[in-house]
């Protein structure tokens, strides 16, 4: 395994004409993804994640800048790039009137693999992604989760040096999401390099070794999830108050409008709030609670989340934009 980056971009840009003028979908993105990493792109819809991915996978040409994927320039050597990557788009890509196995075999042959090699690889992937039960059924009959696993298997057929997954769990129920995460972890354990886009905070947190937060075409921050969370310059605590059920709603409403409160919400039956600095924030919080005649029962300092990172970097919360579901 080489230590050369699998994905490298320099000042990558792409604009689209729109009714409101030119939209800078991707506005100067620099990236470095190393072999064996699960690298994530986190951001809301329209942040430019998918557009970046489409440039890296040769589906659209960049306006300017450079992108080298698996050692080849996407503009100069698109065929070499294609040979060395796997891609699973937002809409999947499996051919529904065909069986899972037929999908895999065709994909292998399109990559120029021999029939025998394709068969062997298909068997391997059917095993790896737990497709055995339904591999010889027409994909129309698959559940959403089964279809997604087939999509991923198709993307892996050519033993790619990097697998691109665009919003892989969008539209899946929680159980199937967890299942796909497990599959991705398994691939990672086998040394695969995976480039994933997501607008789910928990997904980015669970899956990614390193991630880039993207907003309005730019990368606003980059690092391991842990490092990013440590960067958050404010403090977060969870509290519970006496007669919590009755008091929490009114309190939440009140706290939302206080200047010293940066963010407030309910989490696991506690009120979670973030303040600029605990030393000055806590006394102010106490005054508010006193004013309401409510006593605090528990208080605990908690780690910042990726959403806090997002909020600090962009000025808005990702959770507000994309309701989970």
């Amino acid at each position: 395994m080489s230590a050369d980056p699998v994905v490298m971009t320099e000042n990558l840009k792409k604009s689209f004409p729109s009714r409101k003028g030119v939209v800078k979908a991707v506005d100067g993105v620099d990236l470095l993804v190393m072999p064996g990493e699960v690298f994530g792109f986190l951001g809301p819809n329209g942040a430019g994640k998918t557009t970046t991915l489409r440039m890296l996978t040769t589906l659209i040409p960049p306006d300017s800048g450079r992108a080298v994927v698996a050692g080849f320039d996407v503009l100069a050597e698109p065929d070499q790039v294609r040979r060395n990557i796997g891609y699973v788009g937002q809409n999947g890509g499996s051919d529904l009137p065909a069986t899972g196995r037929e999908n895999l075999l065709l994909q292998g042959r399109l990559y120029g693999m021999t029939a025998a090699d394709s068969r062997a690889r298909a068997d391997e992937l059917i095993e790896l992604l737990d497709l055995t039960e339904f591999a010889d059924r027409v994909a129309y009959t698959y559940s959403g989760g089964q279809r997604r696993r087939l999509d991923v298997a198709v993307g892996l057929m050519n033993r790619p040096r990097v697998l691109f997954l665009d919003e892989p769990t969008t539209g899946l129920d929680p159980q199937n999401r967890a299942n796909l995460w497990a599959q991705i972890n398994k691939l990672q354990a086998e040394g695969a390099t995976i480039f994933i886009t997501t607008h789910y905070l928990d997904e980015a947190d669970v899956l990614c070794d390193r991630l880039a937060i993207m907003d309005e075409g730019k990368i606003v921050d980059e690092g391991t999830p842990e490092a990013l969370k440590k960067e958050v310059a404010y403090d977060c605590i969870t509290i519970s108050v006496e007669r919590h059920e009755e008091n929490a709603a009114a309190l939440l409403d009140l706290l939302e409008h206080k200047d010293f409160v940066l963010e407030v919400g309910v989490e696991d039956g506690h009120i979670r709030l973030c303040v600029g600095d605990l030393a000055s924030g806590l006394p102010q919080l106490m005054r508010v609670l006193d004013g309401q005649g409510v006593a605090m029962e528990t208080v605990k300092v908690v780690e910042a989340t990726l959403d806090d990172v997002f909020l600090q970097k962009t000025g808005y919360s990702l959770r507000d934009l994309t309701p989970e579901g």
Partner: protein
Amino acid sequence: MKLFVDIGLLFKRKMLETLRNPVFIIVSMSTPIVYLVLFAPLLNKLAGVQGFAPGHVLNTFIPGLLVIIAFLSGLFVGYNMIDEVKNGVLERMRVTPTSRFSLLAGRVLRDLVNMTVVVVLFVLIAIPFGYDLNVPGFLVELVLLAMILITTSSFGNALGVILGDEDKLSPIIQGINLPIILLSGMLLPMELAPKWLQVIAHFNPAYYVVEAGRQLAAGHFLNAKVGYAFLFMVPFTVIVVIWATRTFQRAVS
């Protein structure tokens, strides 16, 4: 070499799809059979009239219907293309090293096989109704029909890729469908038309194929109309296929 292998693979994929769901034969046969049974009898008294060949009236009518079969077999394939665009199938294949041309050619080839099956079946059905099959003429006619199919199938597929939405495709397909059919003389010979209609018909490639088909059905090979049909259809087919391939190349679905 890889090009031919890929075309073969992609043809096989679509052909398997057809064989799993052979309803297409019934769907494709229904329109011409309805014409044969419910419309052709209206023409019986027109044998020998201007534009109609002497002998059975079907000898004039069937060549037109064959063009309708070829035309419709290709025109509506855009809907299936849109399904594949929406499911990400096309995009997935565009990230493989296969050529854009093979993505198109595999599909068109499948449509060509389907059309040939339907055309042959239909001609066999028409014989007991009184159609005099001229085998050599029919074989030449098949080449012309193939060009019609390749043109409409390439066009329909490319349109599906560009539009990516059934609601946008329908008005265009319907808008093209009827004028082309009426202005080709498929149903009634254009000799019956007033001069201005005849002039417009000369801009319709299908018109030449219909005219040539009637000559071929009568066994007239060395005929100016047959020559014109090839003269128009060969470059027309090439242009449409090149355009459709380019569209596949550029497609951002």
